[in-house]
Structure formats: structure tokens, C-alpha cells
């Protein structure tokens, strides 16, 4: 098995706010991320696909295809957007790194037909990231 990783970057804004919490609770739990006007990050996304190289092409999957999937599913949805208000998949969720990474996993997984999605790593800053993997016993076969 070979792992192939492609990286993209996008810029987006967000804020953390739970309408079920009081204003004090929101400030206490989310700190400066609770600023009502939001704030932004340069996100870096690393998408890793696992598979065997095709004997004819030598590829796990064509990088052009992966680039197009990432452009359509992630860049067009999230780049230069306010994640709370403009990304329907995140509606009703706090757009933390954990939740955004999971939304991206769920968007990409059904679209990757050659090889198998192995890992989604989303960096919010160089020192903070979330990883998603396939859960359960089929993870090892990925």
C-alpha cells in the first residue's frame, strides 16, 4: 500500500458561539474565539489517499483528479467564506478544527473512487490541527 498526500490552503473566518449557552458561558468556554464579528485563519489541508499504484499508470490516483475534487468540494465551499454562515454542512455546529475536518472527510470520502481516503489533516495554525481517520476495523485495510 502507498499513501499519497496532497496539500491545499484556504482562508476563512469563523466564530465559536453556542446559542444554548449564556453570554458568560460562551466567553468562558470559547474565550477570544467568541468575538461576535469572527476572526480568520489560513487553513492548510492535507489529504492522504491509500492504495496500490495502478500497474499501467503507476498512480494510486491521478493527482489532477484529486486536485479537482479538492477544488470543487473544499475550495469552492470554504475559501474566503465565513464558515458559520456560508457553509451549510457546518450549520448548527461549532466550526472547530475537529468539526471542519470531519465535514471535509464526509465530503471527500464518497468522491474518491480510486484508492481510499486514509487521513484528513486540517491545520488551523501551524501548532493546531485535527486528524480524521476511518473508524473501526476497516481502518487497517484502508
Amino acid at each position, binding site marked *: 500500500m502507498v499513501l499519497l498526500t496532497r496539500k491545499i490552503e484556504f482562508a476563512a473566518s469563523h466564530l465559536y458561539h453556542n446559542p444554548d449557552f449564556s453570554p458568560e458561558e460562551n466567553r468562558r468556554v470559547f474565550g477570544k474565539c467568541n468575538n461576535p464579528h469572527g476572526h480568520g485563519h489560513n487553513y492548510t489541508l492535507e489529504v492522504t489517499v491509500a492504495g496500490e499504484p495502478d500497474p499501467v499508470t503507476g498512480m494510486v490516483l491521478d493527482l489532477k483528479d484529486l486536485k479537482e475534487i479538492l477544488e470543487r468540494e473544499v475550495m469552492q465551499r470554504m475559501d474566503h467564506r465565513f464558515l458559520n454562515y456560508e457553509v451549510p454542512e457546518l450549520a448548527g455546529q*461549532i466550526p472547530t478544527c475537529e468539526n471542519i475536518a470531519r465535514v471535509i472527510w464526509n465530503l471527500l470520502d464518497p468522491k474518491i473512487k480510486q484508492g481510499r481516503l486514509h487521513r484528513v489533516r486540517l491545520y488551523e495554525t501551524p501548532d493546531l490541527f485535527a486528524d480524521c481517520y476511518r473508524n473501526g476495523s476497516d481502518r487497517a485495510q484502508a
Partner: protein
Amino acid sequence: MNSGTHIGAVKTELGRRYHFAASHRLHNSDLSEEENNRLYGKCNNPYGHGHNYVLEVLVSGKVDPATGMIANLADLDGFVQREVLEPFDHKSLHEDVEAFRKTVSTTENLCIEIFRRLKPFPKANLERIRVQETSNNSFEYAGDNPEGFEG
């Protein structure tokens, strides 16, 4: 708050990087000077030397629908600060940290010691750690957890 779809199908981990600077000397007092010198080379310099270490901590757990978080970063940062950064940052590992008075402070042993210190984090499950000694050397440790490296 909505917890998202396919929650059972995806395992999510939170990764956080920390930085500390420390000095050390690789030296095993059970070995002769010549053996130490042969084994550890310039790392055996009696006055020690230092590194800018990067510590990567990966934790897993349920993403709380109310907060969107596996663990609140303030809790994780505070725990790592107290357990690792305060005792290690700007210290001489083999002189200031009890664990390395007898155990050689290679980055392998540093990983094991840091993992031991962080494993009791109460708010999430420690999956593994990675310590980068220089931009060319890094080491990972997942304790006894065979799945710790699988994600």
C-alpha cells in the same frame, strides 16, 4: 447543537504543537569515557548542548456537540504547560529533570518520559506524541497502545 453526520464512521484526533528549548548531554556513567565518546560522539561533550524541541501531542475522544471540541485547548495547554513545558523549558535535561539523572536523555527516552507525564490528561485520550529534536530528527511514541500509530 448538531453533532454532524456519520459521527461513528470517522475517528477524529486533535493535534497540538508546543515548543521548548533545553540542553542535554548524552552520557552513560556505566560506560568508560572512550565508550561514551565512541557511542555518543559530539553529543557526549561534557558541557552539553541544546535544541529547540517541538512536541506534538495527539489526543482523541468524542467531539462534544455543545463545544465542537475533543478537549478545550485551554485545558490541554495548561496541562502540557504544567507537566512538560515548565519542568523542561530552558532547563538542562540531564541535570534538572530527575528522570534523566540516571536515564540517558536521548529523544527516544524523552518521548517515553513525556508520554508518561501526559497520559493522565483527564479530558481526552492521549493517542501518541512526537518529539522533533531538530528539523531532521523526530521520534514518536504511543505507549502500549498498538493502535496509537494507526490513527
